[in-house]
């Protein structure tokens, strides 16, 4: 039993241990290698890090439930971009001209609805056709991105609303608006996955679909709901990010799906479904952001950052595998 608990602790706690190591490494290395005088663990720097984690982090929470459920969603980057276009474009629609600043909640709602709708399309196709989610969302990734380009061609969609920018740049209790959104999404999703019937069933379906069906669980509707959740979160991520930036390029959000999946996998969620946790995903998101920021801090360029993250991802998954197989052997005794 004790061995089992130990390996469980290592497994669940590994990502946080990794974060601590990163913090120490970059603080020390920063002393010698950094170009700036500021310490790496400077409060402002850390607050900024949390804020920058939000766009990927919010989507990663949705990806966790999708992957625990045994699916995957490659279209989140495209949903992110299309929702952003709807958000910024609708701010200037003439029908809403009389609303003044009240156009903001309307545009937000439109953007979020776009996300939910696109997610529902994914979920519905996966449910009704039985085609693997990887293939379905690979197709919709291309299709949704196509819609983004059809909307405004190659030109960026821009609209700067200063009320919106003020809101997005605000800090409450020291944390940025984006950070608050990430925190709330994390909390709600954690509650959903650990305390609700839907969350419980998501684990059951991902772990053993046949057994779930035999227990009378309606697998299709659960998958549909999960795709709607991740669609909503991809749109929410766009809302948070573009409220501040005010301009969306049609290529924005590309490769987001891969960053999100990297964070979720780094957090220990199984690609095959059935296991994973929201808290560990948060760890995965922060670990990646720390790495990007830390490597930047000590003067590495973007290509080096990508190389290092790739190597670390493989190394972490290899370690995880070692830990897991070891744990299993011990339990057999």
């Amino acid at each position, binding site marked *: 039993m004790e061995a089992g608990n130990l390996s469980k602790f290592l497994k669940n706690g590994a990502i946080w241990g990794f974060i601590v190591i990163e913090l120490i490494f970059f603080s020390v290395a920063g002393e010698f290698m950094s170009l700036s005088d500021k310490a790496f663990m400077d409060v402002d720097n850390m607050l900024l890090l949390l804020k920058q984690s939000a766009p990927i982090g919010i989507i990663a929470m949705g990806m966790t439930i999708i992957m625990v459920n045994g699916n995957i969603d490659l279209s989140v980057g495209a949903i992110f971009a299309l929702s952003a276009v709807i958000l910024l474009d609708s701010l200037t629609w003439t029908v809403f001209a009389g609303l003044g600043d009240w156009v903001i909640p309307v545009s937000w709602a439109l953007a979020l609805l776009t996300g939910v709708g696109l997610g529902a399309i994914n979920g519905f196709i996966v449910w009704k056709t039985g085609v693997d989610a990887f293939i379905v969302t690979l197709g919709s990734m291309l299709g949704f991105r196509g819609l983004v380009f059809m909307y405004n061609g190659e030109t960026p969609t821009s609209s700067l609303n200063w009320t919106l920018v003020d809101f997005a740049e605000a800090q409450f209790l020291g944390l940025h608006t984006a950070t608050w959104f990430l925190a709330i999404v994390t909390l709600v999703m954690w509650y959903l996955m650990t305390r609700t*019937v839907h969350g419980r069933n998501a684990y059951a379906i991902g*772990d053993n679909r046949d057994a779930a*069906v035999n227990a009378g669980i309606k697998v299709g509707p659960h998958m549909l709901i999960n795709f709607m959740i991740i669609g909503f979160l991809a749109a929410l991520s766009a809302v948070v990010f573009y409220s501040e930036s005010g301009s969306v390029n049609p290529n924005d959000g590309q490769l987001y799906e891969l960053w999100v999946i990297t964070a979720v996998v780094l957090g220990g969620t199984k690609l095959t479904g059935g296991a994973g946790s929201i808290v560990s995903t948060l760890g995965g998101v922060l670990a990646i952001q720390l790495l990007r920021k830390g490597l930047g801090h000590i003067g590495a360029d973007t290509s080096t950052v990508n190389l290092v993250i790739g190597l670390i991802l493989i190394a972490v998954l290899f370690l995880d595998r070692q830990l897991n197989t070891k744990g299993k052997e011990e339990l057999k005794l």
Partner: protein
Amino acid sequence: MSDQTPALRLEGIVKTFPGVRALDGVSLSVMPGEVHALMGENGAGKSTLMKVLGGIYQPQEGRIIVEEVPTVMTSPLQAKSKGIVFIHQELSLAEELTVAENIYLGELPRRSFGRVDWEKLYTQTDAILAKLKVGFNAKTIVGDLSIANQQMVEIARALTVDAKAVIFDEPTASLTDAEKVVLFDVISDLQRQGVGIIYISHRMEEIFKITDRISVLRDGSYRGTLETRNTTEEEVTQLMIGRALDLSRNESNHELGDVALEVRGLSCGHMFKDVSFDVRRGEVLGFYGLVGAGRTEIVETLFGLREPSGGKILLDGEEVRISSPADAISKGISLVPEDRKGQGLVLGMNCRDNMTLPQVGELSSGPFVAPGAETAIFDKYKEKLDIRTPGWKQTVGNLSGGNQQKIVIAKWLSMHPKVLIVDEPTRGIDVGSKSEIHNLIRDLAAQGYAVIVVSSEMPEVLHVSDRIVAMFSGRVMRTFTSEEVTEESLIQAISGITATEKVA
């Protein structure tokens, strides 16, 4: 025959597993050109013996002798190189590849630089196929072949080596009558070429048609060899079951209630046809038959996993349509599936969550789970069914088979079903827990549940059932009451023998 040297001889093979003596000094010899049947009930040790022969298990005692040379088998591949070839019931072919590629899988003829010598491959394959007189060629894609022809590919694979003995494991299980004729022709060809054949089957008719001798195993020990010409089906049956049953017959004395489930003329394509039976409250109805007789398909239909093509299902006298497992559960039909780990349990989840899986929704307040109510159910049934686990947090995958099965049964009991169906209740469960599960099933009937038990173990069916439905190739042959059933009549019914008598 006795002046020849046997193609293959097994001498005093002993194989034990913790707590079980699976093979207790089994000896067997196969002459060149002989078809030797190996018979015995499920669990008699046939497959263990074959695994020893194929090197998957190492015996604690005894010798394997191939043409007078004592041999140690380490793997099926090594056994093949010694001329011992297995034709398994379950085919293992790469369906997207050609016949030739399958036959020489892993040992394709090569040319320089690792290139495949296609010409040689196809000529060699066609030479083998010609011997088998089959209607396809070396370049046919295996996936396009019928099951029978795929089996021929397996047999062709066996012929690439100089086979001394070929073991057929239930080769006719999925073949039509016409296809069987072809298979039997191939077997007699092999026979003429001097290959010794071990033929494992439950089907008396075939055994008497093609074999020379019959060896019988029972409870892991060798019970004798009979000359097929000089024996009868009765004599063989006697030898197979002639033990003093350690399980007593079911002698229930409680009152039966109303009919809970009635099935009239139920059919499902070619899986089963015109099946009728009923089960009362307080009764255990057993289903017995060979693999492929349609038992599991019937219970899957009752549970909404298959769409019936005809017939009626009545629950409490009212006709119902069952469209899905969720529908079946809401109507009060529960299924403890055959494959506990594959279909019954979420292995990574804890005991409590598995037990309450079908009813988390009902226990919940709004969308939120109710851990208190769930734990209460777990505690109640842990006590009631004597489930041995450190606590509800224990992952189900870490429990023993018997305790896992109790969790699955508790899962349904806690929802008070009208009909509880248990498919293979004790598969993969150790002997001690078996009787516990049996007693549990009897208790449930005594408490007034209508229970259907599907099993391929005769002692089990006899022990737990009030009545027994005997099935053969998708049809109900006969329904026995526990007073009238005899082991002989049951074996005959599931081998299709009553059918021929009735027709005649």
